[in-house]
């Protein structure tokens, strides 16, 4: 195996960075807060329109069934009901959604409402619109649907078995996509190993970030222009438009997306295009605006779950000194009933193929199957979270079985800072980072040195104490070219985001961005960047809240997802602002009689001559001249608009489809978490008593905001590691359809959280910043590792699942050998 770092095949362009001291890096107060703390944000359900109808979806009570009859007559007769929409109408007036998967997986037919068959509990079957919310619900109860139940497919490990019933007959099997990923020389690594650790099965459970605001929309149809205005909380309008326009048989321009405030998204609000199409059809049919509010139960049963993944026949060749040579595994990913963003999850994980480790010989057999459960979709840490959890679990199990210290094995195998930029075995380039330094900080924060004493103290209180470490590589700014590794026919690659910055007639600086923030503070950080460049204060920068297609400041990939705003969004803002600054200087130079723009500079809202600061032109005058008094300008200056639009395009290349090789994403923020748990051996109940998270996302535009993202992502991963899970019964009923049974962390559940940071600027981005916010996954690994460490004193069970509620911990305590049977160590 090779330990030397291979240089990128095509060296990435490194953009110039002149980050001046100023507003970048400051905890500038958030512009968003003023309205939000007064309850004056505008969330989708706050939007009202005259004559608006309220929509209620009749949903499937069966996991898998044929629809034999639908009768809406009783509902339609109810006074106050405007109308209904059923699958047959949808099939007649719209087309199935475009599929990302190649055939046969791509033969899935996914309509806005169930057509002929339901494939998961909660699937929308009929839409009913009425004058009030309550009436729509009453009418929905009057809709008669007859079903012929079919055997549900619930176990991903059996889904591919030919004996298992099919979800989508046209696909011919329940396999959506499968492929081999083979990097380095795995067989040589196996031959070279001193020991081989084998793990039969690891399981990453279903859960989702469950944003507190559920999905929803108010959809208006303009019959004169045949255009829809979609007020929604969809977080990726670029993707929604690409999916919806062909389904609705119209051009992109017929779909105007509008949003202001969004109550959390975490990826879960990317795939609402399905319901949005139903609403578009209904608004057109009923000739009135329609409002849809998804209820919590609907969100849990039918919105977007994080992918469930099983890791089978894992094999890890190791040197006796603990050097990891690689791994081999069979991975089965369960995407639920329909492929909406899927099968992208089958390649997104490959952005972090080796995790934070230097093993270079990797062979993965990856299969994605569909089952009769809620469709999956992006969920904070999308697809990488599952894979990174797998790598961390493997490291800890290897350490556990070979008796190597978990810190030591990490230090030995972490990619080193002096190896950055580091090219992974599959051609991804980790831009920068110092994992070992992050680990040292994380351990210091939980006072790791005194851990033995704390362990003894816990024992004295009848508790088992354990320490665990986890990591996240928060890969940001996707190269959508990776989709062609799944489906060579796809015409996607690269990425983009748009911003416009203008200087208006009274000197107002107005910024619009193509993103759809859901708490990521884009208004604030954009203002910081603009203020920095134009030499004004963030208060003087007006950033329009939310998203509107009419601003013409969006592109195909516009949205807020995949940890990229600091790169794509702010990259676009910086680009547009640099253009504007240059134009302002041109006006200034022309008016102040300076030779060139090099002879003037921007300061405190003025263009000033370098040689005579007294000769200054206020921005207001620039705005007034260009917008309302342009005849005073010399001819050569009249092309200046002071309204600059910039499209940021990251320096991505096309991946090698055959080798599944290439740079799949631009930046790699990382987080190292450390966690201390105390387990009650009598009950399996445990408490996280100490916790630290150290983040490195390069240059931090606003440290307080970065820290907030770290806190939130950590809370979500602690939830996922403890009580948050989406289990189904044998009939395919979701057992945690609400916050009563789906227990998310409450204020009392959260441990004291300590945070630290390292700043390793990205050499590849305009501001040296990296996208961040999906760092939470580390917490799941840290909790699992801490539990395994604590239980070592009680029969050394193996923590094999990402979700460890008390009942599972008790099972591990009661019967450690059952889990130990999953692992074998062999001298090679």
């Amino acid at each position: 195996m090779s330990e030397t770092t291979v240089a990128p095949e095509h060296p990435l362009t490194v953009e110039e960075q002149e980050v001046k001291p100023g507003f970048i890096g400051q905890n500038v107060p958030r512009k968003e807060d003023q309205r939000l703390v007064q309850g004056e944000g505008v969330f989708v359900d706050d939007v009202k329109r005259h004559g608006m109808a309220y929509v209620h979806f009749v949903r499937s009570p069966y996991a898998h069934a044929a629809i034999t009859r639908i009768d809406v007559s009783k509902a339609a007769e109810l006074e106050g009901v405007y109308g209904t929409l059923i699958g047959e109408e949808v099939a007649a007036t719209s087309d199935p959604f475009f599929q990302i998967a190649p055939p046969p997986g791509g033969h899935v037919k996914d309509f806005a409402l169930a057509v002929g068959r339901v494939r998961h509990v909660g699937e929308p079957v009929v839409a009913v619109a009425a004058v009030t919310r309550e009436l729509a619900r009453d009418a929905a109860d009057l809709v008669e649907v007859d079903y012929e139940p079919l055997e549900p497919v619930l176990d991903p490990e059996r889904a591919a078995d030919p004996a298992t019933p099919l979800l989508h007959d046209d696909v011919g099997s329940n396999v959506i996509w499968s492929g081999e990923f083979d990097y380095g020389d795995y067989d040589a690594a196996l031959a070279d190993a001193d020991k081989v650790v084998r793990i039969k099965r690891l399981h990453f459970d279903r859960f989702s970030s469950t944003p507190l605001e559920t999905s929803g929309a108010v959809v208006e149809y303009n019959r004169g222009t045949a255009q829809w205005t979609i007020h929604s909380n969809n977080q990726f309008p670029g993707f929604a438009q690409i999916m919806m326009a062909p389904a609705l048989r119209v051009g992109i321009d017929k779909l105007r997306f509008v949003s202001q405030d969004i109550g959390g998204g975490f990826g879960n609000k990317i795939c609402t295009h399905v319901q949005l199409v139903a609403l578009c059809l209904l608004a057109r049919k009923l000739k009135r605006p329609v409002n849809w509010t998804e209820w919590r139960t609907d969100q849990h049963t039918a919105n977007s779950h994080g992918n469930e993944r099983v890791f089978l026949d894992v094999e890890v060749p190791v040197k006796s000194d603990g050097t990891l040579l690689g791994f081999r595994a069979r991975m089965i990913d369960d995407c639920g009933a329909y492929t909406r963003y899927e099968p992208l999850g089958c390649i997104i994980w490959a952005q972090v193929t080796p995790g934070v480790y230097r093993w270079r010989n990797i062979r993965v057999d990856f299969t994605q199957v569909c089952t009769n459960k809620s469709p999956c979709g992006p969920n904070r840490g999308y697809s990488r979270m599952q894979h990174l959890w797998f790598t961390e679990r493997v490291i800890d199990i290897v350490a556990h079985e070979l008796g190597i210290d978990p810190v030591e094995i990490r230090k030995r195998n972490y990619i080193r800072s002096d190896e950055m930029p580091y090219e992974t075995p599959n051609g991804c380039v980790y831009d920068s980072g110092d994992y070992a330094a992050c680990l040292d900080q994380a351990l210091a924060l939980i006072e790791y040195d005194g851990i033995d004493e704390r362990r003894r103290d816990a024992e004295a209180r009848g508790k088992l104490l354990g320490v665990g470490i986890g990591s996240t590589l928060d890969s940001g700014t996707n190269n959508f070219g990776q989709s062609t590794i799944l489906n060579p026919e796809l015409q996607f690659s690269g990425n983009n985001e748009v911003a416009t910055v203008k200087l208006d007639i009274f000197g107002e600086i107005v910024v619009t961005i193509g993103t759809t923030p859901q708490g990521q503070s884009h208004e604030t950080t954009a203002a910081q960047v603009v203020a920095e460049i134009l030499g004004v204060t963030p208060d003087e920068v007006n950033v329009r809240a939310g998203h509107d297609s009419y601003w013409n400041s969006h592109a195909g990939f516009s949205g807020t997802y995949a940890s990229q705003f600091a790169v794509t969004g702010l990259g676009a803002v910086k680009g547009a602002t640099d253009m504007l600054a240059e134009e302002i200087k041109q006006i200034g130079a022309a008016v102040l009689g300076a030779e060139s723009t090099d002879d003037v500079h921007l300061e405190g809202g003025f263009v000033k001559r370098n040689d005579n600061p007294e000769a200054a032109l206020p921005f207001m005058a620039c705005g007034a001249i260009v917008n309302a008094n342009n005849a005073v300008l010399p001819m050569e200056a009249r092309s200046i608009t002071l309204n600059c639009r910039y499209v940021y395009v990251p320096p991505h290349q096309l991946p090698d489809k055959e080798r599944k090789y290439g740079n799949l994403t631009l930046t790699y923020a990382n987080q190292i978490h450390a966690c201390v748990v105390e387990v009650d051996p009598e009950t399996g109940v445990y408490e996280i008593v100490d916790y630290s998270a150290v983040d490195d996302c390069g240059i931090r535009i606003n440290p307080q905001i970065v820290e907030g993202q770290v806190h939130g992502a950590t809370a979500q991963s602690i939830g996922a590691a403890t009580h948050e899970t989406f289990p189904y019964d044998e009939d395919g009923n979701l057992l945690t359809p609400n916050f009563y049974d789906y227990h998310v962390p409450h204020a009392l559940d959260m441990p004291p959280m300590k945070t630290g940071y390292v700043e390793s600027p990205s050499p590849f981005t305009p501001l040296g910043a990296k996208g961040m916010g999906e760092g939470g996954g580390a917490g799941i690994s840290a909790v699992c590792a801490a539990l395994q460490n604590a239980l070592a004193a009680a029969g050394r069970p193996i923590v094999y699942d990402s979700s460890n509620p008390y009942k599972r911990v008790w099972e591990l305590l009661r019967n450690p050998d059952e889990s130990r049977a999953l692992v074998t160590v062999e001298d090679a």
Partner: protein
Amino acid sequence: MKVDGARTFAAPRRLVWEVLNDPKQMAEVMPGVESFDVEDDRHWRAHVKIPLGLGGLRLSINFEKTEEREPDFARLHAKGTGVGALMDMDTQFHLSEADGATAMRWEADVRVAGPVGSMGQRVLQPIVNQQVKNVLAALDQQIARASSKT
């Protein structure tokens, strides 16, 4: 969800068989029956309001006798639909003579789907057990009544 059990009735098998296979007598035994119509000797329909304390759960139930081997075995399929709930139940019983009395082995596979099924899964088991207890108690009385008539 599967439940089963055994019970002995101090009555001859023929009589127990009649009670168990007479829709009208079964209607007396079922909880919260509001109306009951017999379509034919294999198909019945009932509107029930199962008392759940929090307020009754209204279901309209279609019964179909799917198998019958007089006098010792019968199998019944019941499909109930109501607001937010779908109930699907398959029950069967075996009768055997036990010196004068009648021994019954029974098993039922109950499935509840819909929001009620999801929300109520926590308490489904105890509630089903409760309903079964009630039905069996009522059955004892019904059989006692029937045998007193003869």
